[in-house]
């Protein structure tokens, strides 16, 4: 046995080098489908949309920044920018707040029962949004609205949920909060559970009230998860399509359009692909900011490890 080992090692040295060389080849081959997929169906289209945005409607001439100039002159474009920001920012704030509060409620009840409640509260996230938005559409319907029926019982006037710009904006945000809050709940509940109980005990001994416990213990401990979920959700909400498309299709009179739905209307329905590409490119800045934060985070982690 003792004799065999040095013998083997000599034989293996050449093999080891070959193995190392083969290892990176195999590794590359295993990752190749992923690289091809990302390069051809994500990176290339993303770059191609930059090119598309510089063409005229029939895609024959290069017009440079002509499409952007055209957009900047239209009031509707600035309305869409404003509405996208209102929609995304308020929806994310309310989703995060609802999720945070709900996570505390679930955390407060006995562990055995948490599963059941969490299970019920996650259902809005599980139903495909296109399907659940149909239910919301019917709940909001002007003549059959089940919400208005309740309002009438309390002798209040009918609300034109989807027909009046202000209420329509409220409605799309409400549906988005309903759909997205469960995700925050799950994330924040997991984060809450990882906060060591001793910290709260120590805070209690120091005489902290519940608000101080949240501000000085819970929030600092959850800082990472809060920033990640808010960042993710901001991207997803900015790029939202299903809810606005089904609920209002941008109406009334284009007042609830956000980038994605307007790009769809211009590019696919209106057949002006370059202009649509141009509009959807405005989702890039938020992506860039997010990418910067995430890359910074990854490199920080890399240095720690």
């Amino acid at each position, binding site marked *: 046995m003792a004799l065999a080992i040095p013998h083997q090692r000599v034989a293996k040295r050449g093999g080891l080098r070959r193995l190392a060389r083969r*290892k990176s080849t*195999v590794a590359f081959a295993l990752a190749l489908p992923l690289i091809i997929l990302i390069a051809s169906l*994500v990176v290339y289209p*993303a770059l191609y949309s930059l090119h598309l945005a510089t063409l005229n409607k029939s895609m024959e001439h290069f017009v440079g920044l002509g499409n952007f100039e055209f957009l900047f002159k239209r009031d509707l474009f600035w309305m869409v920018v404003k509405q996208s920001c209102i929609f995304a920012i308020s929806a994310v704030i309310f989703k995060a707040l609802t999720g945070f509060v709900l996570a505390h409620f*679930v955390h*407060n009840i006995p562990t055995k029962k948490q599963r059941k409640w969490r299970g019920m509260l996650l259902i809005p996230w599980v*139903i495909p949004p296109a399907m659940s938005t149909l239910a919301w559409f019917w709940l909001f319907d002007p003549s059959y609205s089940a919400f208005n029926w309740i309002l009438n019982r309390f002798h209040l006037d009918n609300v034109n949920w989807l027909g009046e710009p202000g209420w329509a904006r409220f409605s799309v945000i409400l549906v988005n909060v309903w759909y997205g809050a469960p995700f925050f709940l799950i994330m924040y509940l997991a984060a809450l559970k990882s906060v060591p109980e001793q910290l709260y005990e120590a805070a209690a001994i120091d005489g902290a009230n519940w608000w101080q416990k949240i501000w000085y213990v819970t929030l600092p401990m959850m800082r990472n998860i809060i920033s990640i979920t808010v960042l993710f959700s901001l991207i997803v909400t900015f790029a939202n399509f299903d809810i606005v498309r089904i609920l209002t299709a941008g109406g009334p009179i284009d007042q609830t359009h956000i980038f994605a739905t307007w790009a769809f209307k211009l590019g696919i329905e209106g057949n002006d692909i370059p202009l649509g590409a141009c509009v959807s490119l405005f989702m890039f800045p938020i992506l860039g900011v997010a990418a910067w934060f995430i890359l910074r985070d990854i490199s920080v982690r890399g240095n720690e490890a």
Partner: protein
Amino acid sequence: MSAVAMEARPAKRGSISKDRKKAMYWSYFFLMLFVLFFLTPPLYMLIMSLKTSGEIAEARFPWWVFHPTLDNYWSLLGSENFQNFFINSALVSLSTVVVTMLISIPAAFSLSRMKFWGSSTLAAGVFLTYLIPETLLFIPLFKIFSWVTEFTGIELVNHWWVLIFIYPTLTVPFCTWIMIGYFASIPKELDEAALIDGAGWLQVLTRIFIPVALPGIIAATIFAFTVSWADFLYPLVFTTSADQLVLPAGIVTTLIKGDVFEWGRIMTAALLGAMPPLLIYAFLMDYYIAGLTAGATKG
């Protein structure tokens, strides 16, 4: 000092548990309110699906059904369009799951264990592509596909199977990312031992990594299935004729026709369309939630 502490403890414990109890009851109260709010749309779907058109049109009491009937279900299950949507959805989602797993498991294995030149950049890149929204890609993809058709004569637009090529862009980055996390948590000794015993890298993957990381693979599978089942934008852009549509786009584009709203049928269709993800969720909730949280906590 210790005497004081001993004395104080029983009194304090009593007050803490009383506070806790109060907090618990209030929590139940508010949880009940939120569950009511969260479950209103699905329950409303159920109520509407059991109503006849007459009862819906009457609109006397929208929140309850007085003459429940399964007519909507029978008529939908018998309708050829709806059967088509369901079959197309199932085929697209299942194939997407298979394609996703075939791409992301080997890739995650190679990125987490076998490092090659540029592999860490690629891992970060995978994560960034997960963040590129579909709403940014649908217009260029549409153009590229019609362009491919022009050059090769292969009709890509308006075929359900074209979604099998597109959906992996939604699922693969995230699945690869969470698989990297799961694979990285497997102790290195395991694969080193196998390599010393003369196993090849592929054997390490199939004999060790896939069995050990099975919970992660199940979570990723569920994610891939639910995402491809629920997607609405891509089918709306790439498929138009009734026999090529998948469920979400099919229900919205064919059942909602002008002013003739057959809302009983629409709600039934939506409910049936929501069933597969709901059933998966009901039976595999822990995997579902594991997949959901793994992406962010490991990112």
